[in-house]
């Protein structure tokens, strides 16, 4: 292919014009974002290589914080628990929120009520709802174990009071709380699928499952991508639910990375080390998200 000089010049003028236009769109948000988020995040990257304790000076310690992490058994526990949570929480929430959205994307009496109900766990104060879940999970007196005993399970799990069951309990509450939120994104996504596509599929004789497979799912791909990325980041960063439900216990059975960071930073005042752990968490999130981006791009191509 030969490019004439004139074409190239016109091309570069177009690029220039587009860059200016693009930046004018981005700038109002970017100005605030850069000043208030980007700058502190850059500082964080610097702090991670120091022994900063919040006050005064920080000594440059190079990779010491990262070397320390390798030998830190609590860090490993926190990492394992975070992965445990993420691996179960993402598919569960994805399926539950999509199911809810499909169920509620139709003409029904009382639709508004049902949608509000689904969104309720997300808007209810987290302090109140962890109170209730703790009561529900109470091993001896709680209704959940009461029900399990009634259906013949002699030794129901200890939930939040047992090292083996505390993580599943946290995952249940996490999924329950967030599915309404992602349902909302899916509902908006379902609206972007043209009704004509369903009509066409119907004319072709596709049954409900086939229509779901060949029309709904592909049509929802941008939404699913969005939900998956947000879920990934949200799961890796899970904090408040765990803090209020189990506080990382019993023992270290539900200790996750963001709580570990909070402990090292705000309880033990080792902000240098806490920042280094944040960077590892960030790197993991970033890596997984970047893979999702690549997969998404390839599929779209």
């Amino acid at each position: 292919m030969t490019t004439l000089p004139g074409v190239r010049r016109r091309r570069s003028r177009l690029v220039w014009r587009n860059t200016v236009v693009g930046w004018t769109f981005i700038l109002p948000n970017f100005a605030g974002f850069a000043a208030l988020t980007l700058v502190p995040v850059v500082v964080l990257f610097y702090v991670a290589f120091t022994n900063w304790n919040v006050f005064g000076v920080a000594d440059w310690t190079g990779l010491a914080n990262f070397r320390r992490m390798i030998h830190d058994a609590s860090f490993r526990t926190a990492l394992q628990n975070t992965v445990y949570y993420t691996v179960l929480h993402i598919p569960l929430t994805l399926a539950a929120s999509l199911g809810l959205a499909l169920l509620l994307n139709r003409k029904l009496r009382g639709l508004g009520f049902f949608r509000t109900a689904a969104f309720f766990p997300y808007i209810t104060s987290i302090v109140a709802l962890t109170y209730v879940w703790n009561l529900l999970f109470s091993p001896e007196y709680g209704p959940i174990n009461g029900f399990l005993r009634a259906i013949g399970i002699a030794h129901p799990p200890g939930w939040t009071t047992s090292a083996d069951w505390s993580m599943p309990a946290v995952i249940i509450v996490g999924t329950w709380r967030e599915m309404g939120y992602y349902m909302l994104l899916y509902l908006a996504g379902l609206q972007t699928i043209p009704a004509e596509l369903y009509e066409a599929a119907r004319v072709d004789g596709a049954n409900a499952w086939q229509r779901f497979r060949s029309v709904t799912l592909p049509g929802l791909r941008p939404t699913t991508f969005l939900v998956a990325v947000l879920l990934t980041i949200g799961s890796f960063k899970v904090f408040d639910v765990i803090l209020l439900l189990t506080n990382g216990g019993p023992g270290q059975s539900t200790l996750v990375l963001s709580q570990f960071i909070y402990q090292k930073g705000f309880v033990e005042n080792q902000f240098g080390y806490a920042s280094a752990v944040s960077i590892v968490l960030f790197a993991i999130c970033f890596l997984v998200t970047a893979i999702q981006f690549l997969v998404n791009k390839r599929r779209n191509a």
Partner: protein
Amino acid sequence: MDTTLVAPPAGAGELVVPGRRRRRPRNRVWRALGYLAMLVAAAALLLPFYWMVMSSLKTNNEVFTIPIKWVPDSAVWHNYLDIWQKSQMTTWLRNTLILSVAVTALQVLTGSFAAYGFAKVRFPGRDLLFLGYIGTIAVPWQSYMIPQFILMSKMHLSNTLWSIIFLQAFGAFGVFLMKQYYESIPDELLEAARIDGLSEYGIYRRIMLPLSVPAIASLTLLTFVTTWNDYLGPLIYLRSPDLRTIQLGLSTFIAQYNAEYALIMTGSVLSVLPIAVIFLLGQRYFLEGIATTGLKG
């Protein structure tokens, strides 16, 4: 291709519901089953809220009992009067409302604007910049909140409502969400508009905005709820009692009346109600004025 692109929104309540045109008896059974499934799901979802409401109508000692008491012996309505006297609920609600409205307006405006730049204008470095945006979502806030706090304090913003507005309004989340929806709007539509002589800003205002009402409604709701329920942000930035938000107020209220569970639950119910009402009113907009009408062809 239809180039009179600015589609009027479909009439309120007129639903775009695929696959629900023909009625057969078998459908009725499914319908009934669907209702049943939703009722069960709704009951499970609303359970903690139900417990909250019931607890707010109990006396203090009835709230935590073994086993759980699902219905109070007799409803204690005066909790709903007492709370206004014992707390600065009005101040808290006012502050929270100001913050939520300001943050939501800024986030939706700047977020959707930036999203258009990211989704529909091609220029070098765009994808990298966008990845940077998403990247910061992945950094846990508690790890950079101290540098951020020092920064805000140097700008004399801490202990003002502005600090929370700036903190929340320029998040990367809104940009990401809007970009995803803009990408599902076909480029052909924009090309046609460009040929018709519309500028990029014109396209954004006259085509993208009307077409993305459901996405904007989602973003509005989510931003509003996030700001409304934010606890850690106000906790770090606000000191003066006059500036307290509802979550901050509730938590000081809990510290102050730590044994008054019923009253605490009353406060919690009151903190949820405004959002519930907004959601109930706003959710129908998800079904309105949507892309399909403009895309025939």
